[in-house]
């Protein structure tokens, strides 16, 4: 690393939880090549080895990272208004997500992040839509069918609430323990995007995947204001364009992979089907609006997003 420091270009330390084999690592590689032309040297650290999951935002705020792929849940930890984008059935798909962030609502959200956290958000990095995978064979049509199902959700109130909003009995469990948990019956199911279901081999211990599409999964590719503000306008535009290009490529790859995986899981003998998504959506949005979380949402934002 000593030789890296000797180069004239400015270092962009980037830390992410995903592995070096992930599509998003390739996205960063592509971004890094374009950034090089702008005089930046991207230094990526994958697998959460440099900063643990959920600690990247503070690392950016404190100047220990120049770039990060920040979970919206982490932002909402510090800016409660942001919890709106972590709610179930808000975005319909990757395209809807992109349009909202490109639009006025996105501008509002980005400004809050810039003013309060000191980070500039380049764009949402889609990594798949969360679907429910189950071990029991019980057919799921509506949230009522999920009653009593021990669905593993990530730890924390917000995630557990997401499980409740699907009608399930949410169970916190470490990600690494989910496979054995399913195998032994400690839990009945998990909710993750299909690529994770493949990476972690969850499909081996599932009988079915219910395409609830309850949460469009994304993080926010961000750069610290310190780096962003130091750039002249034309360089900023080029930097943003490089990010947009890399994100668009990654999103397309994820969508392609999700389509392939749904077929693959079928060939593995799994039942893959869509439930009554409207019933799920109505139930979940009602639960969210009645919760404390919704109190911090900016007035009218939900309707604006729904209308887009």
């Amino acid at each position: 690393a000593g030789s890296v420091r000797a180069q004239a270009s400015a270092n962009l330390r980037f830390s992410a939880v995903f592995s070096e084999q992930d599509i998003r690592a390739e996205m960063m590689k592509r971004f890094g090549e374009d950034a090089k032309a702008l005089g930046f040297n991207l230094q990526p650290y994958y697998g959460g080895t440099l900063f643990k999951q959920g600690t990247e935002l503070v690392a950016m705020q404190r100047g220990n990272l120049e770039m990060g792929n920040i979970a919206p849940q982490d932002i909402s930890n510090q800016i409660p208004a942001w919890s709106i984008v972590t709610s179930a059935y808000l975005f319909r798909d990757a395209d809807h997500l992109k349009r909202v962030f490109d639009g006025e609502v996105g501008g509002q959200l980005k400004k809050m992040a810039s003013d309060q956290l000191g980070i500039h958000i380049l764009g949402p990095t889609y990594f798949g839509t969360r679907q429910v995978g189950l071990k029991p064979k019980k057919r799921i049509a509506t949230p009522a069918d999920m009653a009593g199902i021990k669905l593993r959700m990530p730890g924390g109130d917000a995630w557990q609430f997401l499980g409740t909003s699907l009608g399930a009995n949410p169970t916190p469990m470490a990600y690494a323990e989910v496979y054995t948990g399913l195998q032994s019956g400690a839990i009945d199911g998990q909710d993750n995007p299909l690529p994770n279901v493949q990476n972690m081999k969850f499909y081996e211990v599932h009988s079915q995947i219910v395409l609830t599409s309850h949460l469009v999964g994304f993080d926010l590719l961000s750069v610290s204001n310190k780096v962003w503000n130091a750039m002249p306008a034309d360089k900023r535009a080029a930097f943003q364009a490089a990010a947009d290009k890399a994100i668009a490529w990654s999103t397309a790859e994820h969508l392609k992979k999700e389509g392939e995986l749904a077929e693959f899981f079928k060939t593995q003998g799994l039942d893959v089907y869509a439930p009554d998504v409207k019933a799920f959506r109505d139930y979940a949005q009602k639960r969210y609006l009645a919760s404390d979380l919704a109190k911090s949402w900016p007035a009218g934002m939900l309707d604006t997003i729904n209308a887009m």
Partner: protein
Amino acid sequence: MTLASPFSLSIVAITVLALLGLPVGHAMIAGSALYLLLAGQDMGTVAEQLLNGMYTNYVILSVPLFILAAEFMNVGSMTDRLMLFCNALVGRFRGGLAQVNILQSIIFAGMSGSAIADAAGTGRMMQVMMTRGGRYTGSYAAAVTAVSSVIGPIIPPSIPMVLYALVSDASIGFLFLGGVVPGLLMALSQMVIVTITARRKNFPVEEPVALRALPGITWRALPSLMMPVVLLGGIYSGVMTPTEAAAVAAAYALLISAGLYRSVSWRDFYRSIAVSARTSASIGMLIAGALVFNYVITVENIPETVKVLLASWQLSPVGFLLLVNGLLLLLGCVLEGTAILLIVVPVFIPTAQALGIDLVHFGVVVVVNIMLGLITPPYGLLLFIMANISGEPLRDIVRDTLPFLFAMIVALAVITFVPETVLWLPRLFGYKG
């Protein structure tokens, strides 16, 4: 990387501070702080890495609970009853008490995750029994206790496997299963050595225990014998996660010792918890120091550099495993096991992955290696403990462990080059590695 780079200087600082006698955890924290200072980075990162590392790693929570479980077992009379049971089974053979010592360690291994706990908990009693009436020399008794204690963390549960899972993200459940056959192989290799030596040196046999006494002895040892069944059964039937199993082990040991054997007073109970808290804090400091220093290693891309270097040597998986075995055995002579596990092993994990070596297999090989480091001089903790308990000179104990060490290295070679010895059982339980 030059000699005056922040990284080199921080390594020098850690080594020098540790050799000057500063606790290893403190030395790593101080050396990492020096790195950040010299590299012009935020020194608050020391606190950031330590605190978040300790707070977010779910699996380390089992470490203090396994320590607590071992304390509860040793304070009760669980181990005494086990000893009587083992004696009834194998005491009658030539070299009987030495075999009892090993068999007792196998059973103890199924309950405890710590080799030190085995030696410290049963060492004194075994020493008295084996040397009574000049049956065995003091150094031989001490050697057998030291080498058999090594089995403890190879057979599940296991504190070092928890630490390996921490640095590798391999599944603890499958690591635990992977240790069963290698642990038994280690024990077998020791029993073979005892059998050979017993014939040559005409070791004594114990008074055979009458057959009709056996059911009673077994019955009294049964609650202890059931503990591995409760733990592994609980994990694989989904009642608890491997991390939670540590708490169940402690609860079970407490229940048996206090409820059934009625051998635990309130005072004993408090002492067990206080001693465990003390031990947990000192091992916790070592883990904490390693977490902070790992940041330095990561920033400097050391694992990646090692991967590139080893790739340029074009090592085969077998060659790589040989190299790691040799290196770890050497390091085990001079370094503390936890430090090796937390600092040195992570550096090799990306290479193991790149070479297609199964991380559960690699983990078990690594743990066996580190356990052997507990009985290799000059720095072998089990040797120190047994020298202290037996009052025998370290040199004599070391001499008597050598045949065992040789046999165990042969067993290690088998485990290393026949991955099935490790992976067969996990695969039986659904592991797809």
